[in-house]
């Protein structure tokens, strides 16, 4: 059983990085340079954890069941909204408005599902390895903490991306009805990507910090709730601390254009999503001034020009969804960096 094979790869194997590139002619040198460049690219993107995680997640019936259930829910949301715009004969009245409403409701459903799915996917990522007693085996490989964290994150986010892309046929119905510009879709996907990264990085930090899957997942969901609701509640609580200002244009502006609450509320992806998908008091984001009276409102009446803005003080003013995207992007980077540092410093007891 245990006699060493005569021609075993075991005795002569060298890591790829250590294999010399040979060749003396000009062509060989060019090939060698090309190989070197390819090796550098491979080295940068090389992460076997992504492939392993995706293979594991997509194997068996769980992924299929998740995808089917998810599409059923999103489809049901779309059907309910579409039905609301249908006449008794089944014909769609005001196709543009129907398309716009369908798009917004589908997008909101997707955003909500991202908020619910990401903590559950990423929370167990590292804590699960630790609980399974495989984390040390990964840590002794040349992968390093950064690639382990990024590999786990990318694999989880790839599954989320699959869920979002699987909704494309439903979104196409909204396009058929009209009322949606391609730029809206691009903005939505950019925002969704950053929010997913932000939630994923917070969950990853919980996963690195906590030793067991259960607590890590619970804390991941709590972090999601704090990120979503915390800024809105905090902004509401802070409103008394900032003086009100009259708006010369007579537009609804409760407590002033420049003030912390407006900035604080933009941290929440809820505010960003509402701004991105809303159309002022006539649309889905009409609830924002109710939640946060300090929220700055500029513009006239309901329409495309109507949008919330957030003052960043000396940095100027951004649309709220852009400010939210910036804040959440920063949180995502900070969360990933903190996870890598913590995993590097954390020593087994």
């Amino acid at each position, binding site marked *: *059983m245990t006699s060493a094979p005569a021609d075993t790869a*075991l005795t002569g194997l060298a890591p790829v990085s250590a294999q010399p590139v040979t060749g003396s002619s000009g062509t060989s040198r060019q090939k060698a340079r090309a190989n070197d460049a390819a090796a550098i690219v491979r080295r940068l993107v090389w992460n076997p954890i992504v492939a392993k995680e995706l293979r594991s997640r997509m194997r068996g019936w769980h992924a299929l069941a998740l995808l089917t259930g998810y599409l059923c829910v999103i489809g049901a949301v779309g059907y309910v909204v579409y039905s609301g715009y249908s006449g008794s004969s089944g014909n769609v009245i005001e196709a543009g408005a129907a398309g716009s409403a369908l798009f917004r409701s589908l997008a909101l459903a997707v955003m909500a599902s991202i908020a619910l799915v990401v903590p559950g996917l990423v929370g167990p990522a590292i804590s699960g390895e630790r609980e399974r007693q495989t984390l040390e085996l990964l840590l*002794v*490989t040349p992968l390093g903490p950064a690639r382990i964290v990024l590999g786990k994150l990318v694999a989880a986010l790839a599954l989320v991306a699959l869920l979002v892309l699987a909704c494309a046929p439903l979104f196409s119905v909204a396009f058929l009805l009209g009322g949606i510009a391609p730029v809206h879709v691009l903005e939505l996907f950019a925002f969704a990507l950053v929010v997913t990264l932000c939630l994923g990085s917070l969950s990853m930090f919980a996963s690195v910090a906590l030793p067991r899957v259960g607590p890590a997942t619970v804390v991941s969901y709590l972090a999601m709730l704090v990120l979503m609701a915390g800024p809105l509640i905090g902004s509401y609580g802070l409103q008394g601390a900032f003086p009100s200002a009259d708006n010369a244009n007579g537009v609804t502006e409760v407590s002033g254009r420049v003030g912390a609450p407006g900035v604080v509320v933009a941290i929440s992806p809820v505010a960003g999503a509402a701004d991105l998908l809303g159309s002022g008091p006539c649309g889905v984001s009409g609830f924002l001034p109710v939640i946060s009276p300090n929220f700055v409102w500029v513009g006239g009446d309901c329409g495309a020009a109507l949008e919330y803005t957030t003052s960043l003080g000396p940095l100027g003013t951004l649309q709220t969804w852009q400010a939210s995207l910036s804040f959440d992007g920063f949180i995502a980077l900070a969360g990933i960096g903190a996870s890598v540092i913590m995993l590097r410093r954390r020593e087994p007891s």
Partner: protein
Amino acid sequence: MAAEAAVRVQGLTKRFGHFDALAGLSFEVKRGDIFGFIGPNGAGKTTTLRVLAGLARPTEGDVNIEGVDIVAHPAALGELTGYVPDLFGVYDSMTAAEYLAFYAACYRVSRRLIGRVVDDLLELVGLPGKRDVPANKLSRGMKQRLCLARALVHDPRVLLLDEPASGLDPGARADMYQLLRALQELGKTLLLSSQILPELAEICTSFGVIQAGRMVACAPAQSLLSGPGPRRARVRARGDLASVEKIAGAIEGVTQVHRNGAGTLEVTYEGPGAGSEGLDGPAILRVLVMAGVAVTDFRDDGLELFWQPAGTDRADRDGVGATVTEEGRTPGPDGSEVVD
């Protein structure tokens, strides 16, 4: 000497808060050796292996593996060593071949070589028929061999194995030892840890006995296992002397236990080292009797025992005779170095 050392550890200290898990540990392992790292629970075996594997940073001291200072160049460590922890898991959804292929990719083994490496390793560890079996369906012994194969995917020069035979039945243990010998024949240097010397006696070429973070004996196997006997050791015990007498009397090869009074027993040991019951205390006591080592501060079940070779007559710190030469080192059997 240094050129032949695959592993050289000098003054290794690892501190957790105020607790010194390792207190100035020093030893060398020659290239191609199977080095047995013996000691009771909490002695520092696992901590030492973790430091060597790069999972823990030393507080103080130098660690060289194949001439590379791993404290200064930790990135080089992954290529040099293969580590098998005492407790490890497998991925439920992976087959044995996928498991090895994944780790081969982690170690940057070329994609075109991975298939061959996996096949060779499964052959080497005796699991060619389990290639497509989910890893979690394998028996404990098979998982142990699979994990050993995992540690070999990048062809490391030094293997660190933390209690590789623990929990295995005698048949699986014999298979494991046969496999370790095969790896030695391939030129690997192996460091194995165990709580029990006889468990490793049949395969190790040298031993180190660790106690409370210090190396108390480090010697070639033949000098540790087959020194001249019978040997006598005087034991000074605090606590229940009758229990110590009972423990010492139960050790295989101990032919006489004589109570001298003043908390001292004189133990006579004769016979080869075999058949420990697996108890930490007796097993280590037996190792020490065989090695003729003087050890202080050996704690087991609340008893504090002070061992010393029979026939020594100088006083140690508690007033009991001990042979102590310069720098606190005493010569062991056939000149091997013994640290007091």
